[in-house]
């Protein structure tokens, strides 16, 4: 068979194939009806806003709408970079998310390692049941607890410190900027340490038990076994979650900050990219400006995720 005949033979069925695909599409209308509405839904609620981010390059006017608002290029980006808010917001975002990463990331791993050493099953189950619970409570409730615990009006934390003679007078912890980061990070760890440990506990359960036997025979005590067997065995899981955490680095928090930093005096330490977008966009109606800040954040996040993944690929664990 010569090459030309092959081409002819392929060209004809392809046209017919396309026609047949369309007929087949309508023939399986009942099946398509399960999927197409969902796709249209995703188009409306996800893709239209994605396209809408182009308004970062406009002077969006709520009366003119997206189509008639004038284009202004990178004006809003430059405005943000040169604004007084830029450095404080960037600093807070990075510091808060790094603190959450440095403390919030290892904490559940440590908890899982400790729970794994517990031989009394009832005790283990009680600790698990209690520590998982805050994950299911809303941030409003958790913030309510925090405010109540730290309150100067007989908050338990102040009372405890007074009883221990560490302070003389109740301290208003939530209105002093030097304590805010600590409170924020502790509250986050408090809320999610238990729930986040589930995944590591599952990974630990999959570790080959023979290794512990062998290590015990070699004279390794339990602390050594913990760090020389258990931890290395679950390292792949840890790395994957580490990559995800780095990709989320600019998500310094949103609900928690909105709820805990109600005191405007805290803005110097509490304003992060997400809350800034909210404040500028929703509260001050500077739509284009806020969208530009949001887009800036999204781009940096993608870059961070890519870098983290490149690093992880060197260790043989990567997301894609």
């Amino acid at each position, binding site marked *: 068979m010569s090459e030309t005949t092959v081409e002819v033979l392929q060209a004809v069925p392809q046209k017919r194939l396309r026609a047949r695909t369309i007929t087949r599409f309508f023939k399986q209308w009942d099946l398509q009806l399960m999927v197409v509405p969902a796709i249209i839904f995703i188009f409306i609620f996800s893709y239209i806003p994605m396209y809408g981010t182009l308004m970062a390059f406009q002077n969006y006017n709520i009366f003119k709408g997206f189509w008639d608002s004038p284009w202004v290029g990178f004006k809003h980006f430059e405005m943000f970079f040169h604004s007084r808010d830029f450095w404080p917001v960037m600093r807070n975002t990075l510091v808060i998310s790094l603190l959450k990463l440095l403390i919030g990331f290892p904490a559940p791993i440590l908890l899982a390692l400790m729970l794994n050493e517990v031989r009394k099953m009832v005790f283990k189950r009680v600790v698990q049941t209690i520590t998982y619970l805050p994950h299911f409570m809303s941030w*409003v409730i958790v913030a309510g607890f925090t405010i109540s615990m730290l309150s100067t009006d007989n908050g338990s934390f102040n009372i405890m410190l007074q009883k221990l003679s560490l302070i003389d007078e109740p301290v208003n912890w939530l209105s002093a900027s030097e304590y805010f980061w600590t409170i924020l990070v502790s509250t986050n760890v408090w809320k999610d340490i238990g729930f986040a440990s589930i995944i590591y506990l599952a990974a630990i359960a999959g570790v080959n038990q023979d290794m512990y036997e062998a290590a015990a025979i070699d004279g390794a005590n339990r602390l050594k076994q913990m760090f020389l067997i258990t931890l290395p065995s679950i390292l792949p899981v840890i790395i994957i979650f580490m990559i995800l955490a780095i990709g989320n680095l600019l998500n310094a928090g949103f609900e928690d900050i909105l709820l805990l930093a109600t005191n405007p005096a805290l803005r110097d330490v509490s304003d992060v990219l997400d809350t800034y977008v909210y404040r500028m966009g929703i509260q001050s109606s500077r739509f284009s400006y806020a969208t530009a800040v*949001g887009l800036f954040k999204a781009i940096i996040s993608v870059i961070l995720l890519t870098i983290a993944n490149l690093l992880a690929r060197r260790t043989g664990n990567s997301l894609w």
Partner: protein
Amino acid sequence: MHHYTFGDRVLSVTIYILLTLLAFSTFYPFWNALAISFNNGLDTSLGGITFWPRKFTLENYNIVFQDKRLLNGFVIALLRTAAGTVLSIICTAIFAYGMTKRELIGRKFYMVFGIITLYFSGGLIPYYLLIKDLGLRDSFWVMVIPGAISVWNMIIFRTFFMGLPAGLDESAKIDGCGHWGTFFRIVLPLSGPVLATLSLFTAVYHWNDWFTPGIYITKQNLLPIQTMLKQILNSNIMTEQMAQLDSAAQGAASRMRGITTKSLSMATMMVATLPIVMVYPFVQKYFVKGVLVGSLKE
């Protein structure tokens, strides 16, 4: 089998102490709030309430349940959770079932189309303007409709459906069931565990979400209890409420009953957490499973 060295003992004791401290510090804020909510407000302000109420009273709860706005917020939250969960689970499960079919034309495209949304989003402001343009602002449905399809949950459902025995579909086809009939009569009844897990997480999201209504709804009578609680914590409602209580004759009564802002907000918080705490013991086994399923796709 094992012989424990002295070091092992020290490690063990340290771990038990640390875990006890952690469990206590997790449990205490909740317990303390509960104690305050059952204690006379004026008595609470004298200080010293830790584990148990000193002057037991139901008055705080009495006020909360008599407050029509809070009660309305509770009902709105229940309605929203029920409607949002049912709609989301049904729509997403149907979508996922369609996506399991090899003969589905465009399956690959649909999948990529969905997965892209997991990594990129338009962000808060374009989404806000979309909701506004769709006329969903100040509507009950803004808390329900945008959650109808979850790509994340679709992937979990799809993985589960694909694990069901292949012969099921065949036999259903022979019995004259179409895709929809097979889904509702055969696949759905076999999907108990995954339905329970995803319903749980969806319901918890809906019950706890205060932010969506917070920015899209301005009508007080449409706000769910979590959003109202947020306002209370910012002491908007509460000062108002206290002012009302303090006005004229009621003032004396409230002072006699010993109601304070603190005792009322604690009681409200307890009411707002009640549904979560009540279902929590029954669903623990499901959410542990759910986390593991969820992490597989990551």
